[in-house]
């Protein structure tokens, strides 16, 4: 539990706020290169600021305040490209480097980028990623309840025997031991990271199923978050992808509500979004009751406050990189065989929001062509 004042401090990110100052020290994605080939300008609302992104005649990009006083000049911010995405930096200059995370720069991958506007504060979305146990319920038992009439059983319901959280250079590694597993399993031994401050990295590293997934939570303002689902699928040996799948990031809008306005409870992202949004526009942490399974959340909040103090003391916060030698490729922990994926690649693929990608079927077809046994779902 935190005080109402601490909750305000942790969640508010507009200009002039302390947490806003911390998040402004990091590059944030604002779109793809591909979408800007088709248009010259785009509105961007980021950290409570209304901005205009435009492609100039030199092929570069400008990001300026969308409106400014007559006779004045608009604030301008840095824009750069990495991994087929456009990134903006709203912090003090000189800007640091955009961290070259493995999945963003891996070669020969099929890349997709789903996005949606989630009508709630960014922090409750991030806290979900430091909350290992929620998968057992929200994506396990609750999923089975939603599909009760169909008798669905899912691998997510396996019980958590142990959870662990370790700080590492780029953030926090989250670990779990599920019933029947040991600490030798990748779920514990390797784990998967939250890249500080606002990216969940969860992929799969087996030869037949090698993918990178980043969930990037970009605050639009205090009560809205642009959620990006980035995926980069590495071609298994023997699989070939047509060039049009490889030459750009394929963006799409991820639906998050059904036509009747309710949440999409039969999909993993819809379950998450139900939980996040139902906590309120800004979750009232002065009325929560944290248990022993919530220590990843507490660790993350403390890290936010610690890094806030660092910038207020005049230092770069965690994960701000300025030395190009440290930024060749940032290799993140990546699990190979994940217990929660026992339902098989294709089944999970279809349960997840990636199914809304316009190239979803093409991705499945390419991966099937490798005839990797692990990709075949049990009937």
């Amino acid at each position, binding site marked *: 539990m935190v005080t109402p004042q601490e909750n305000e401090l942790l969640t508010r990110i507009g200009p002039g706020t302390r947490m806003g100052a911390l998040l402004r020290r990091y590059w944030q994605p604002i779109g793809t290169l591909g979408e800007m080939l088709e248009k010259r300008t785009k509105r961007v609302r980021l950290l409570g600021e209304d901005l205009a992104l435009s492609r100039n005649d030199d092929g570069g990009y400008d990001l300026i305040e969308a409106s400014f006083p007559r006779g004045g000049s608009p604030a301008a911010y840095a824009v750069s490209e990495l991994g087929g995405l456009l990134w903006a930096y709203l912090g003090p200059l000189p800007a640091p480097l955009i961290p070259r995370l493995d999945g963003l720069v891996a070669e020969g991958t099929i890349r997709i980028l789903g996005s949606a506007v989630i009508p709630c504060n960014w922090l409750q979305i991030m*806290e979900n990623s430091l*909350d290992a*146990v*929620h998968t*057992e*319920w*929200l994506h396990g*038992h*609750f999923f089975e*309840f939603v599909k009760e009439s169909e008798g669905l059983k899912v691998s997510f319901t396996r*019980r*958590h025997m142990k959870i662990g959280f370790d700080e590492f250079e780029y953030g926090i590694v989250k670990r779990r031991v599920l019933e029947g597993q040991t600490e030798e399993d990748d779920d514990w031994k390797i784990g998967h990271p939250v890249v500080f401050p606002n990216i969940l990295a969860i992929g799969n590293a087996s030869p037949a199923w090698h993918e990178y997934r980043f969930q990037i939570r970009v605050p639009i303002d205090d009560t809205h978050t642009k959620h990006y689902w980035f995926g980069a699928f590495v071609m298994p040996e023997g699989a070939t992808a047509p060039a049009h799948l490889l030459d750009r990031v394929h963006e799409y809008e991820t639906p998050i509500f059904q036509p009747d306005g309710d*949440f999409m*409870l039969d999909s993993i992202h819809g*379950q998450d979004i*139900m*939980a996040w949004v*139902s*906590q*309120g526009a800004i*979750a*009232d942490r002065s*009325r*929560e*009751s*944290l*248990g*022993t*399974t*919530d220590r990843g959340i507490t660790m993350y909040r403390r890290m936010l406050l610690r890094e806030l103090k660092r910038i207020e003391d005049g230092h770069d916060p965690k994960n701000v990189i300025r030395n190009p030698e440290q930024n060749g490729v940032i290799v993140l922990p990546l699990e190979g065989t994940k217990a929660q994926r026992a339902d098989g690649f294709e089944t999970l693929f279809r349960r997840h929001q990636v199914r809304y990608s316009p190239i979803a079927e093409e991705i499945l077809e390419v991966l099937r062509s490798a005839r990797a046994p692990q990709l075949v779902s049990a009937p």
Partner: protein
Amino acid sequence: MLTAEQNERLTRVGPGTPMGALLRRYWMPVATVGEMRDRWTKRVRLMGEDLVLFKDRSSNFGLIGEFCPHRRASLAYGIPEADGIRCPYHGWKFDGAGQCIDQPNEPDGSTFKDRIKNAGYPVSEMGGLLWGYLGPLPAPLVPRLDGFVADRAIRHVGEAIVPCNWLQIMENSLDPVHTEWLHGLLYEFIKERDGVKVAIARHHAKIGFDEFEYGIIKRRLMEGQSEDSDDWKVGHPVVFPNILAVGSGGGLWQQYTFQIRVPVDDTHTRHYWYHAYVPPAGSVVAQHLLDDVPLYEPPIVADDGSYLLEYIHGQDIMAWTTQGEIADRSRENLGSSDRGVTMYRKMLEREMAVAEAGGDPKGVIRDPARNEYIELPLERNKDMFGDGFESLFRRHMSIFSPIAEEIIAVFAQAREARREAREPASVA
């Protein structure tokens, strides 16, 4: 006229307010039994509290705080079990009293759950409705008002969220004269082109208000009526604190109507129009009409947002909501026809004091012997019903009910049967 402070005191119903404390002494309808048949949960906002009505797998109902005390995800998406409901986010389980009874991922033997208490309130069933009680325990009885429990009645209930404070809706029910204007002359004005005239437009010669055991009886004498008419002699009651009971005992039908005003919060009211029609003995009524209490949602505004002024309920809702979200009683000017309103406000103040002192306020019943069947005053041959059952039915929100035409048909058949009994068909 009231002071601004008095107005606040009389209108605000959230937790911790004096009027909220009084209204929490009474059972409030929160759903129909029918609407929970095919669902496990329903969000219920009641007197400023966000709650979830749930059905467990043993078919018991619970009414608990919507937000899980753990990390405040919504229990409206909860997973029902035999003895409670689990939060969809982390599986914490709550019973109907709001007590946390399981935290599946906390260590064995942990007492953490014992210290986690969500809001939890009693639920009861009567007349096809589910009622919730948000007051201090032990809860009193749900008053078995005649229309809710009368045998062999056809029932239906309309529901709408009216975007204004509950008190101005209740005051309307202590204001007999408004019918002459709002439902009479205004209606005739709306229908001027059609040349429509209605019985309701008759002039009030006299009005009266008397306190009785369950509330206030409202009486009226229309021009040309005598004091022996039921409108004056019997009258019809406001059942304290928030139900208008206006029915008709004359003619073929025994008809009970309850307008129940349930405060959602300070600026929204869940309005139920509950009807029970007892057809004459011997009439043929389809079994489903006797078994089910269908819920329907009459429109309260037209598609373009304008009020539905050709309907009686639309006229009322226009008047209530145009008074403002919370009517500013510091700027009103009450006349002699408003003394029912004043009497009701004084009664609210008096009963607030009773509740504050720890007593049971008016209409709270704890003795089952007193609660077998509460027969309320019921007028026969109501002057305002002079246009006839079907004509009034079609002008009222009841016409939006899914069983509206079936009710009219049962009535028409009964009327025909009686006519034939009186006038045997002549032999050709």
